[in-house]
């Protein structure tokens, strides 16, 4: 049940928040599975088993990427950070050194609250 991992009473949460939780939980599970498969690939002495496990491990990466994309489409701050860091080539800590409006912890002048997006997104399934 998705509600098992909730940290607040379910009655206080709307459907969109619970869906977000479901996706986050699913993403964690996919990443954990990748790690498990990877260790088994390295541990086994049977090359044919290692090939099967490596195939399964890489399938989980597809699942993780799909779930991450679902989250990105609904989370402007996550979207901003993924756009900033992914597919770059310079040292990762230098990508962030220009500062982020959503993370005052980064070097650079503190920026106003968030990117300006109000983060409304989809309201399908929201309480009304």
């Amino acid at each position, binding site marked *: 049940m998705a509600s098992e991992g909730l940290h607040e009473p379910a009655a206080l949460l709307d459907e969109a928040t619970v869906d977000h939780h479901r996706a986050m939980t699913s993403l964690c599970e996919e990443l954990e599975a990748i790690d498990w498969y990877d260790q088994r690939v390295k541990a086994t002495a049977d090359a044919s088993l290692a090939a099967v496990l490596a195939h399964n491990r890489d399938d989980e990466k597809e699942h993780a990427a799909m779930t991450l994309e679902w989250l990105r*489409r609904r989370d*402007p701050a996550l*979207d901003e950070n993924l*756009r900033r860091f992914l597919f770059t080539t310079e040292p990762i800590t230098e990508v962030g050194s220009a500062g982020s*409006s959503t993370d005052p912890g980064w070097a650079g002048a503190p*920026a*106003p*609250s*968030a*990117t*300006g*997006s*109000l*983060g*409304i*997104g*989809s*309201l*399908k399934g*929201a309480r*009304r």
Partner: protein
Amino acid sequence: MNHLYRELAPISEAGWQAIDQEASSRLPTYLAARKLVDFAGPYGWAHSATNLGRSAEIFSPSEGVVGSQRRVLPLVELRTEFRVSRVQLDDADRGATDIDLAELDEAVGQIAVGENVSVFHGYQAAGIRGITESTSHEPIAYGDDMEQYVNVVARAADVLRSTGIDGPYGMAICPRVYTSIVETTEHGGYLLLDHLRQILGGPLVWAPGVDGAIVLSLRGGDFIFDSGQDLSIGYLDHDVDTVRLYIEESFSFRVDEPDAAVALIPGG
């Protein structure tokens, strides 16, 4: 800094927080379309067009060569301006929680109505065909007798079902009719609102900007709202008394399945 230039505004973090919170808390009430259609994105301010997956033949550039050009749906930008008193912003810094943001409240309603109208009835200048323009079904007329409304909505759901469009169904309703529905109790004391929800299997949505009502399938994949920049607040300029801001978004909308909606119009 991005194109909204928020960092240039003479507004403290507390002021921005008050403005953003006010807008975020009011917008969902007005944004009817987002409660009923699929939302894709946001893909960012640089996202300029939606891929339609089609091309159209054009004149050949030279002998023996056939030319065709991709068709796309450009995103439209909607913006409404508003002013905030600097005295009110100073009060927010002092901890006031009841600052006057009346112009923001008005702007929020205006941009939401613009979005609703574009989705439900279309926006010709932007190339957006709305749901009532795209539907393949004849509209169903309703009269003033709200008790007859049950039959009208049941007929609309039946039209969708009989063309193979699965539910649940939802309904966007103009404010006048919505109020009448909420106020109506059927024989036996049953609330009309609850009865209609049972017929549809989905929500009845108060939809400012809508004429009449629209019954549509919520199964997904039929109506796509493609968001570039989701609703955001930016800075224009300021003087000694006020700060001029705006609320803005970019989006396109398309109907992929014209069979999936029925319009209800007054006059039956």
